[in-house]
């Protein structure tokens, strides 16, 4: 017999017929009729008119029929509250049935009948069922409390069901425990302040015991509940982690993800130098990788979560790039997510592979995927400087394909690459211009216009190109209009003679014919600037733009912290806090990661979490820092909304390319000597970049060698190189400058000796530096108060700061200086010993040193020989300390002393060193490890200079 026939009846008078059948005496016929009713109900027909007749069938000992009637009841009781009362008696009776299956069925259904009048009658049966001897009934009753609470919370509290539910957490049956936990967690969500779950070490212990025994679903409930607990200290945290880790091998992905959530959260509390911390990090990677062999829908959930985990703790998956390579038959949603993670994991070590993959992807068929792949190539260029050139050439290849959307996407990312590496790849502009006509998307058009405006002086027909856009000005999107306005103003400032008309035209279009306030305001500002003070206009419009940083779409840290607490859930899939998509009171509570309690590393845990805790986090996380507001607007930063323009981490400051020799815009440089635009101010102050790398596991043989404790003697004075002549009098109309650099009490000094070898008096001295690798800038004006007469010499000491604008120089420690006096402006360049940038707090913790040493890839290690040095290791160590090179540990192996040292540069870069000194051998070997290996050569020179003087 098949049941599908019930779906087919659509006759008129059907209800009437059914009514007759429901009241039939024959049991079989009754059952058939109920099935028909349920089938109609399923497809959405209204069969509520049959309510009394169906309820009449309730009193039966046929369990199958009973279940069908109950199903009907659950659907229609709300629309027929009066009639529903009729069913109460049967429920009460069924709750006393000797068969536990029937008792459970009754209590289960009861809770689903959402009629106020009835609920009161149900309290007594529920109370009994909560204490039933059969666990099956108890586990069902536990869920029923949650149901009742959803209907009438007050009633549940008044009746004391919550306490009974709490007692069930100690039940002997693991499934009862699991359901009680689930019910309590849900109830607690709507009472954020009640201490309902009352998690304490004892109850946690019970939960952990039940965890080993209950079903896969029960394990999920318990793990999700555990994740809400905050352990008292790191020891408790560790012991819970130890008991949760076995769950990582469960076949059910949800169990694995919930376990990952607990571990990720509790890990926050573990001190990073703990061996266990490292072990735990290692244990997390394989299960996460395994999730990628699950069904595609689960892969999607897993990938969305991995995206969060990678942002929080990149070290976990940094070696697993390959598993995120896209497979040909992955569903599109999996492909897109994998691509995202690939970019996050891209690094110098794997960039070649990643690029090869991305190039493959860019030839696929799915438009979204191809676009994202093209965009990813651009992001790689920005993230890994070494790959930039290859990325650009790959993008050019792609532009040659002439596939419209590929070209547009490529242009958008090339614009970003220009922003990151100014003056490096402008040779490609010609190719870009060829594709001008094919651009039909606002973002691509805007990007192209920005490029034309920014490099107007190098594009011969820039005015024609921009003019062509101007024709349809009013049909363009705002983004393009704003961009066009700025680009033309830039063009005007660069080539004022030919473009006067054009700029007039665009200003009047923007201010008079447009009703967009943003556009109008910007138009007016430009207009006034241009008419009142063209020099100021130049300074504002053509000002140095901050470089964009590599990570463009990171989730804001507070939100990330919250999402980590929601691993596995919808919030982690949407990357939004629950309050953004859940209605009502539920989920308003913000979850936060616990603070680290361990060995005084509390500073690690950001306070941001607390600050934003109370307010709604939808208030758009401000990724673009405030300095961008007005100024940024004028500097046309509106192009790249997700781009961080704020203080760039100082390492990336090191990697900026481009040479802007003093020739060009120096006139402006000298005019505003006192305070250079504050743009660069962020660089020096950027936090020390020693990110997650500190977490690396500690242990192994290297660990104990630090117990030896290298005795560090009295520091000596810092090394100061002798003065040299920087600017001979011949070249500077009689002004001779010689000098040196020194670091005194934490302040960098430039010590200058100015000699007037000319016949006339020199006055009005001023000094300015070009942008340089470490942002050196005069901290005050050059103090030459009295005029310098012929043949007179004056010694001046100029304090320097390291917060000036940054540009990588070659050699790294090169400094280009301009000195002005009443006669002329003179330029010279000099090299400073990098040792003056070594800061006083450059002594690293041993453990941290060890971890960092391991964490820095071996590729970054460089070795040098220092020859003919006759100091013993003790003396060398003392000497070095004078220049802020700190010996952290020393060990002696077969007559060879190994000194381990750390150095911190003023911009937060750490350099780690290992110095081998052999008694009787004047040649030392030194190995340097640093995240920015470019500095190694300079640091080595310092060693040599310091040790030999």
């Amino acid at each position: 017999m098949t049941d599908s026939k019930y779906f087919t009846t659509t006759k008129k008078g059907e209800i009437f017929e059914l009514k007759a059948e429901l009241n039939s005496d024959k049991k079989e016929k009754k059952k058939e009729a109920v099935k028909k009713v349920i089938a109609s109900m399923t497809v959405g027909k209204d069969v509520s008119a049959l309510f009394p007749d169906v309820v009449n069938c309730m009193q039966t000992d046929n369990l199958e029929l009973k279940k069908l009637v109950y199903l009907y009841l659950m659907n229609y009781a709300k629309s027929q509250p009066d009639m529903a009362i009729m069913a109460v008696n049967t429920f009460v009776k069924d709750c006393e049935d000797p068969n536990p299956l029937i008792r459970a069925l009754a209590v289960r259904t009861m809770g689903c009948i959402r009629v106020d009048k009835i609920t009161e009658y149900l309290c007594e049966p529920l109370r009994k069922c909560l204490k039933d001897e059969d666990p099956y009934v108890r586990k069902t009753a536990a869920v029923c409390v949650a149901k009742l609470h959803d209907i009438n919370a007050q009633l549940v509290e008044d009746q004391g069901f919550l306490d009974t539910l709490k007692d069930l957490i100690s039940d002997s049956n693991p499934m009862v425990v699991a359901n009680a936990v689930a019910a309590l967690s849900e109830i607690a969500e709507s009472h954020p302040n009640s201490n309902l779950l009352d998690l304490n070490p004892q109850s946690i212990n019970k939960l952990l015991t039940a965890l080993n025994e209950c079903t896969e679903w029960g394990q999920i409930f318990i793990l999700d509940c555990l994740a809400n607990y905050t352990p008292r200290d790191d020891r408790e945290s560790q012991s819970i982690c130890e008991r949760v880790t076995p769950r990582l091998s469960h076949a059910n992905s949800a169990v694995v993800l919930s376990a990952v959530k607990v571990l990720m959260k509790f890990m926050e509390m573990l001190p990073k130098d703990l061996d266990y911390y490292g072990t735990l990090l290692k244990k997390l990677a394989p299960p996460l990788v395994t999730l990628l062999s699950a069904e595609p829908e689960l892969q999607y959930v897993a990938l969305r979560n991995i995206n969060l985990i990678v942002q929080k703790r990149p070290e976990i998956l940094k070696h697993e790039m390959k598993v995120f390579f896209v497979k040909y038959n992955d569903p599109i949603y999996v492909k897109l997510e994998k691509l995202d993670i690939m970019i996050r994991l891209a690094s110098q070590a794997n960039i070649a592979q990643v690029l090869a993959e991305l190039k493959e992807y860019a030839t696929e068929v799915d438009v979204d995927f191809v676009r994202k792949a093209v965009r990813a190539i651009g992001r790689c260029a920005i993230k890994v400087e070494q790959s930039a050139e290859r990325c650009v050439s790959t993008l050019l290849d792609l532009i040659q394909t002439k596939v419209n959307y590929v070209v547009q996407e490529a242009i958008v990312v090339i614009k970003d690459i220009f922003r990151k590496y100014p003056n490096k790849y402008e040779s490609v502009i010609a190719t870009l211009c060829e594709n001008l006509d094919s651009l039909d998307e606002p973002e691509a058009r805007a990007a192209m216009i920005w490029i034309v405006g920014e490099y107007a002086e190098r594009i011969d027909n820039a005015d024609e190109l921009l003019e062509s856009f101007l024709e349809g000005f009013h049909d363009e999107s705002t983004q393009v209009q704003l961009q066009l306005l700025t680009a033309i103003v830039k063009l005007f400032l660069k080539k004022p003679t030919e473009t006067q008309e054009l700029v007039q035209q665009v200003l009047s279009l923007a201010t008079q014919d447009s009703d967009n306030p943003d556009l109008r305001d910007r138009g007016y500002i430009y207009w006034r600037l241009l008419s009142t003070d063209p020099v100021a206009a130049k300074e504002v419009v053509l000002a140095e733009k901050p470089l964009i940083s590599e990570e463009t779409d990171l989730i804001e840290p507070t939100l990330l912290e919250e999402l980590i607490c929601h691993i596995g859930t919808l919030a982690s899939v949407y990357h939004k806090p629950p309050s953004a998509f859940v209605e009502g009171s539920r989920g308003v509570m913000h979850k936060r990661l616990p603070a680290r309690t361990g060995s005084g590393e509390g500073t690690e845990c950001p306070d941001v979490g607390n600050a934003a805790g109370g307010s709604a986090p939808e208030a758009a996380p401000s990724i673009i820092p405030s300095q961008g507001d007005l100024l940024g607007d004028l500097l046309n930063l509106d192009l790249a909304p997700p781009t961080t323009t704020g203080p760039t981490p100082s390492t990336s400051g090191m990697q900026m390319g481009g040479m802007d020799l003093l020739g060009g815009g120096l006139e402006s440089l000298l005019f505003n000597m006192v305070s250079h635009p504050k743009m660069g101010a962020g660089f020096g102050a950027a936090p020390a970049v020693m990110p997650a790398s500190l977490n690396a596991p500690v242990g192994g043989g290297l660990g104990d060698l630090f117990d030896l404790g290298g005795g560090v003697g009295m520091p000596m004075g810092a090394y100061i190189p002798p003065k040299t002549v920087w600017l001979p009098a011949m070249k500077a109309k009689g002004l001779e400058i010689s000098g040196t650099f020194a670091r005194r009490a934490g302040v960098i000094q430039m010590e200058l000796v100015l000699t007037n070898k000319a016949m006339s008096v020199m006055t009005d001295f001023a000094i300015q530096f070009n942008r340089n690798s470490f942002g050196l800038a005069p901290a005050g004006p050059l103090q030459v108060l009295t005029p310098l007469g012929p043949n007179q010499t004056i010694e001046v000491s100029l304090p320097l700061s390291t917060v000036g604008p940054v540009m990588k120089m070659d050699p790294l420690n090169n400094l280009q200086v301009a000195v002005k006096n009443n006669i002329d402006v003179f330029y010279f360049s000099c090299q400073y010993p990098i040792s003056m940038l070594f800061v006083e707090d450059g002594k690293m913790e041993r453990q941290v040193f060890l971890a960092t040493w391991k964490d820095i890839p071996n590729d970054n290690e460089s070795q040098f020989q220092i020859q003919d040095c006759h100091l013993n290791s003790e003396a060398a160590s003392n000497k070095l300390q004078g220049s802020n090179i700190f010996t952290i540990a020393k060990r002696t192996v077969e007559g060879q002393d190994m000194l381990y040292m750390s150095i911190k540069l003023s911009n937060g870069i750490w350099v780690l060193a290992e110095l081998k000194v052999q008694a009787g051998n004047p040649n030392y070997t030194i190995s340097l490890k640093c995240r920015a290996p470019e500095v190694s050569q300079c640091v080595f020179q310092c060693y040599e200079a310091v040790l030999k003087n």
Partner: protein
Amino acid sequence: MIGGLFIYNHKGEVLISRVYRDDIGRNAVDAFRVNVIHARQQVRSPVTNIARTSFFHVKRSNIWLAAVTKQNVNAAMVFEFLYKMCDVMTAYFGKISEENIKNNFVLIYELLDEILDFGYPQNSETGALKTFITQTGIKSQSKEEQSQITSQVTGQIGWRREGIKYRRNELFLDVLESVNLLMSPQGQVLSAHVSGRVVMKSYLSGMPECKFGMNDKIVIDKQGKGGASEEAAAGKSDLGGSGGGGGKQSIAIDDCTFHQCVRLSKFDAERSISFIPPDGECELMRYRTTKDIILPFRVIPLVREVGRTKLEVKVVIKSNFKPSLLAQKIEVRIPTPLNTSGVQVICMKGKAKYKASENAIVWKIKRMAGMKESQISAEIELLPTNDKKKWARPPISMNFEVPFAPSGLKVRYLKVFEPKLNYSDHDVIKWVRYIGRSGIYETRC
């Protein structure tokens, strides 16, 4: 938690609709139909948010299963539940099709009532469910039977019922592996991994306590300490020639996951795999290895472009395992450019054909013994095109099946203890089978 569960046919008609939560209304049923099933675009995500309601869906043949919620549920759990739901339905009435669902809708409602309570998944092991949810109507149960059912459904061993009896105690273990490879034209392994499964079919009486052992490096090293691990290291070095033949003593497993019957804390502490298996078939474990994989075949490609209108392709395949073993269902797929006009193929063994619709030459060999080689050569004629873009040369892919585990995994033992019944480990008839299949097995050319 899950607010409701709907099943639709391919047209978007509702076959099953079960609502668990008050916040899910009838309109949710239509919202999903309109926005997902009838959507013009390809499905872009398995999770869809429509008007603050989230829909999770999976598709089985042309049937849509959708779980609905308005809360911040555990998304991984919802999908796991939907898969489980599919498993349960398949176990009850076979293939998930519109007809089967309509024929069993009463049963499905009954199941949904049992395995999802207020949106919380409950015990969903078919072994347990089948004891009290039957298609034949409930037999009148005695009190003992009833309490046995409830204790099983809620108990620690929810996946197995008491009192199972077999005349012959038998068990079958299948080690099923798929080996994945990406190789450079020069024969350098770019990436290789094996994903394997151990599937167990058991017909054992009572509540047997089982212990499964394999040549897991960690276990072997721990047992052998000094001597054995040296042996293992020595064994490893000769994996080349003896593929499948017990060359390796132990293997390094990157990661593994287990069926819920396996005691995970015991595995974590002692790395021993002990469990009471469900009756019948179950996937005992899944694992992944990346080290010392035996690559059953080596593909050596040679592509030469002769002028602008001709390509010469020569591909040699070499089998790399014991000569006594036979690989089956071998298929080599050589991609051809889109502007191919004609192909001449010569192969030593098997059959090869140019399939224009697939842009590939497909070379099939039924069987091939170990340590053999065979080759195919083809001349591909091309139409002249003005397409500047060079042909991207997609990789040559391969399919096969071999009777050993490419990871080198070996079942060392599966011991069965049932103290209450009078059969011992020796009485159990055990069968072990190894099958290695190709996953994505590609060589660039």
